[in-house]
């Protein structure tokens, strides 16, 4: 959930979304460690401004870095180059380690920046911001309904699971368990389909003709201009660290 007192929370959601996408794109193209360090500082500043240093943020990064660890361990094995160290028949290359660590650093920076700018928004605001930035309406509607009906699907899931448990079902690795889980999944999908049809009927009854209107009106303010200038300068600085020498020569 968003901390209303955070400076980022008062920035227009469209500016935040566009800023996050632009910054993430820039980070993906960085190759120099100095530039990645500069981008890391920008991402940290955004996270501070969004008051995003919470348990969930650390958990997300921990999960991401478990994957990154596999990458760092495995990629150097299959990348040719100067040997870094060997263990029996296996040799880890310096180029592979650089490459894998680069990916891990970029992933962490992008996640930190997007976590600060996007993940602190509520999903429906995010959907509306995406729509006003030109995301196709159908995609936005799918996102909108996913958010709304995740809770209902979760509720249905528990209802069915409890009904199975109440009749003594315990999942095992036998034909009966697999068949029962198959029925369970099938029933969950059928119920979801039924509900989607009823929801569409209810929407039609209230005049829905394929377009979702909204009460939310986004307004740009001077605060958004300050945010854009800050992020713009930071992005140019990062880009300069990466490609500055080429620009000068």
């Amino acid at each position, binding site marked *: 959930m968003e901390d209303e007192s955070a400076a980022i929370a008062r920035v227009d959601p469209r500016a935040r979304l566009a800023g996050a996408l632009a910054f993430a794109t820039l980070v993906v193209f960085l190759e120099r460690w100095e530039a990645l360090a500069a981008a890391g500082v920008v991402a940290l500043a955004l996270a501070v401004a969004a008051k995003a240093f919470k348990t969930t943020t650390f958990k997300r990064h921990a999960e991401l870095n478990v994957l990154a660890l596999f990458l760092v361990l495995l990629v150097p094995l299959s990348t040719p180059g100067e040997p870094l160290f060997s263990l029996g028949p296996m040799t880890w290359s310096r180029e592979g380690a650089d490459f894998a660590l680069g990916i891990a650093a970029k992933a962490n920076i992008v996640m930190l920046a997007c976590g600060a700018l996007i993940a602190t928004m*509520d999903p*429906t605001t995010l959907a509306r911001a995406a729509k006003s930035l030109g995301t196709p309406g159908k995609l936005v509607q799918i996102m909108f*309904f996913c*958010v*709304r*009906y995740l*809770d*209902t699907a979760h509720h249905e899931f528990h209802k069915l699971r409890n009904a199975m448990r109440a009749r003594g079902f315990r999942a095992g690795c036998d034909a009966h368990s697999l068949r029962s889980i198959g029925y369970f999944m099938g029933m969950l999908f059928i119920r979801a389909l039924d*509900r989607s049809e*009823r*929801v569409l*009927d*209810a*929407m*039609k*009854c*209230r*005049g*829905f*003709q394929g377009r979702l*209107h*909204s*009460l939310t*009106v986004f307004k740009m303010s001077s605060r958004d201009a300050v945010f854009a200038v800050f992020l713009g300068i930071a992005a140019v600085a990062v880009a300069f660290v990466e490609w500055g020498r080429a620009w000068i020569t």
Partner: protein
Amino acid sequence: MDHLMEFDKISFDYDGQTVLEEVSLSLRQGERVALTGPMGAGKTTLLKLALGLLKPSSGTIRMFGETLRSEKDFRGIRGRAGLLFQDSDDQLFCPTVLEDVAFGPLNMGRSVEEAEDDASEALLRVGLEGFERRITYRLSGGEKRLVALATILAMKPDILLLDEPSNGLDKTAYMRILELLPSLPQSILIVSHDKRLIDTVATRRIVLDNARVNDCASPDSIGD
């Protein structure tokens, strides 16, 4: 125009089974009609047919003096006849109560300010003022039901089609519905098994059984 809604010899089949057979009924201006009958008799089907959500096998549906056949015909009248669904979770899909209640008015072309006003007025009417920013899926069953009723009242329809409005309500919400429905100016077709609600709200009762209709003059003229 006296008759707001008329079903003339409507039949409906589902999976080869006759659900309704040559059913004729009407709803006049200011009338509050209770539609009763055993489960599976086709009461909900009848409400859905009225708004074109299902297509009859034969017969004619007239709403507000117009004969309706195609989806386009029905689209034109949906803002004038509000259907309250049996399960409020089917009806409420917006993140907040205000947005859900304003959904209908916005679709009808009202401005954001007008839609907000209509929504606030409807919420006040059902006794849920102050619920505007509440998250719909976290409401209690009774609150959801009242919000669902507000979503159709906000469209300011001429007819209310209510499918089991008192189902699963807590005492407070039930009393609110019992108080509210007779005070509404709209014509009402109410599907219910709740005798107390029917006695309080309805001026006429129609029994649907074995795919046919039995029209009665007053709610008391047929026993349960």
